[in-house]
């Protein structure tokens, strides 16, 4: 048996990672306490040369209010996430301006109130703007790397991205409910792209002495979850895609990312089990950005606790970024109190048990299931395709068993889909080349193999 970082699921608990990460400002992530991570964004507005001063002012104001609320609630450490909108990556110096604006406010609060903070900058994957996208050749990749470099220079402490390699294929395959397209996109294209992309990101992070955070399968598994939430796709499909996406996200760590992995990635507990890196998670308190089918469960082994993304809007008590900051702080307070009282495992189990059987999608996110997923991925070796097959088959096994044992409700249409997907998964070929030949011919126009250095 090949070992993964943790020996048992029991050893894993929120606030603690085998390999904690320390930010330049001295915040230890995964070192014994859960820290809130606040992600805040602009309300609907145009971003251009003319509105840039307003954009920058708004980010400064949002940052100030968030940190003010932290001070009022005596929260001494905080992670902020600046997740770039398209234009802010497209014009790297704009994103860098905002980065340094935010950092300036953070430093002011450290000086004035002693509150420590670190800034995660998530670069937009602007390659997703062309169809079929040019993943490596041409301008978008160069611009993104410039954006990473300039933001790291401007004060980013942690670099992240939600990279979209393979998404041009999986977007279509999702709507078709086509397992083969999904496996090819997530098991071949995505990992292939991430090797290239993350080698560059890690090099930039090292150059600036900042942290290479991680990459999420947001554009794949969260897209599936959202489509399932809107009843566009069956939940069984979304559940399988969730586990299928884990091997892809593992690539970033293998190329040198150290965590904290980014919140959008519900696959993070699996990656933490395999590698021991600290992770950010989102759940109930990210209801501002999307509904979660497992809002408590996701906190079970988190090291950062995030609100995903909230637009700056006024409510009765103030603006939404500070409102969600307050809620995250109280969530973390409870978890950290439990850790101090030696009740961490106990609260972790309550969080898991409160959700793990209420929805088809939560079945595969149960902590024990995640742990076993981690084990099987590792056991499948170093090849992403083999790992993806292993994760996919295991997800199917979990769902089939749950359906047979009536663990949660499967509607007639979900059951029909489960059987359909079962057949499709059982007939998946063992090599990516075989799968490539089987793919629907309509897919050929969707992606450019050469952009992945594939020649078939």
């Amino acid at each position: 048996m090949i070992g993964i970082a943790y020996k048992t699921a029991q050893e894993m608990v929120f606030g603690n990672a085998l390999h904690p990460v320390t930010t330049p400002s001295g915040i230890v992530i995964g070192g014994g306490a859960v820290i809130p991570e606040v992600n805040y964004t602009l309300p609907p507005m145009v971003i251009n040369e003319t509105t840039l001063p307003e954009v920058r002012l708004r980010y400064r104001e949002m940052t100030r209010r968030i940190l003010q609320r932290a001070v009022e609630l005596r929260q001494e450490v905080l992670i902020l996430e600046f997740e770039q909108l398209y234009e802010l990556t497209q014009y790297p110096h704009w994103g860098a301006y905002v980065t340094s604006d935010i950092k300036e406010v953070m430093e002011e609060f450290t000086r004035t109130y002693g509150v420590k903070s670190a800034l995660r900058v998530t670069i937009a994957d602007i390659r997703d703007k062309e169809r079929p996208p040019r993943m490596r050749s041409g301008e978008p990749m160069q611009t993104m790397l410039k954006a990473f470099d300039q933001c790291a220079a401007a004060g980013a402490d942690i670099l992240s991205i939600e990279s979209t390699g393979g998404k041009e294929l999986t977007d279509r395959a999702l709507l078709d409910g086509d397992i083969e397209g999904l496996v090819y996109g997530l098991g071949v294209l995505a990992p292939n792209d991430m090797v290239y992309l993350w080698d560059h990101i890690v090099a930039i992070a090292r150059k600036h002495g900042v942290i290479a955070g991680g990459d999420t399968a947001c554009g794949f598994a969260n897209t599936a979850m959202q489509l399932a939430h809107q009843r566009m796709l069956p939940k069984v499909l979304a559940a399988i895609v969730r586990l299928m996406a884990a091997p892809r996200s593992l690539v970033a760590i293998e190329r040198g990312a150290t965590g904290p992995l980014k919140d959008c990635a519900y696959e993070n507990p699996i990656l933490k089990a395999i590698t021991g890196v600290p992770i950010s998670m989102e759940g109930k308190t990210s209801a501002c950005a999307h509904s979660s089918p497992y809002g408590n469960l996701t906190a079970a082994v988190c090291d950062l606790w995030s609100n995903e993304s909230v637009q700056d809007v006024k409510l009765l008590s103030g603006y939404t970024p500070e409102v969600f900051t307050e809620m995250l702080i109280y969530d973390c307070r409870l978890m950290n109190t439990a850790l101090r009282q030696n009740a961490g495992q106990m609260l972790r189990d309550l969080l898991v048990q409160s959700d793990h059987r209420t929805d088809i999608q939560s079945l595969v996110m149960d902590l024990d299931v995640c742990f076993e997923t981690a084990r099987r991925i590792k056991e499948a070796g170093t090849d992403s395709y083999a790992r993806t097959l292993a994760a996919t088959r295991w997800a199917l096994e979990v769902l089939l068993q749950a359906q047979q044992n009536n663990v949660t409700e499967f509607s007639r249409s979900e059951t029909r889909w489960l059987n359909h997907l079962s057949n499709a998964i059982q007939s998946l070929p063992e090599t990516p080349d075989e799968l490539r030949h089987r793919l629907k011919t309509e897919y050929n126009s969707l992606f450019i193999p050469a952009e992945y250095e594939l020649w078939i």
Partner: protein
Amino acid sequence: MEALLQAIYDGIIDGNKDQVTAKVQEALDNGLPPETILNQGMVAAMAEVGRLFEEGEYFVPEMLVAARAMQAGLALLKPKLVQADVKAAGKVVAGTVKGDLHDIGKNLVCMMLEGASFEIIDLGSDVSPERFVEAVQAYQADIVAMSALLTTTMPNMKVTIDALKAAGLRDKVKVMVGGAPVTPEFAREIGADGTAPDASQAVTLAKSLIGA
């Protein structure tokens, strides 16, 4: 006759393209009026598919294969329909606005509208105001359907509406807007004719806008 129509109907619901084309051809050969095949066989089937979707029995993949089966049948039917002067419910120019690549929602709306026998001119994603204007003019469209997923691209909906006004086309076409961040208030503010929270309600809206 009944049996043929039923087979076309069933073929669409099951997404069986081959069955639909075979049976449509057979029906035409047997002299069934194209409008009857269209309305009693195909449109009725797509309505049932829509109902199954509403009820959670069908998902998008089933709707897609049904729509493709319908389109295959429609390809055979179209030349005859033109002769018989049967018109589409209306012409829709659709696209996601400038700067926005998120086209899943727009694609769903197009598919559902097609199922409800609208004619769709799909401009794809990242569509500039000028291209919308051109298409409305060129195709004599009844409806412009714009989608945006990003709050930063939403303002381009208003830019497009203003471009339609400037081109003197705003009175000749209805404007639908949609996408996660779009609210009824926003639609009203920018001068659109309506918005719908999801793809199937978009069909209801489109029908009501052109009085179909």
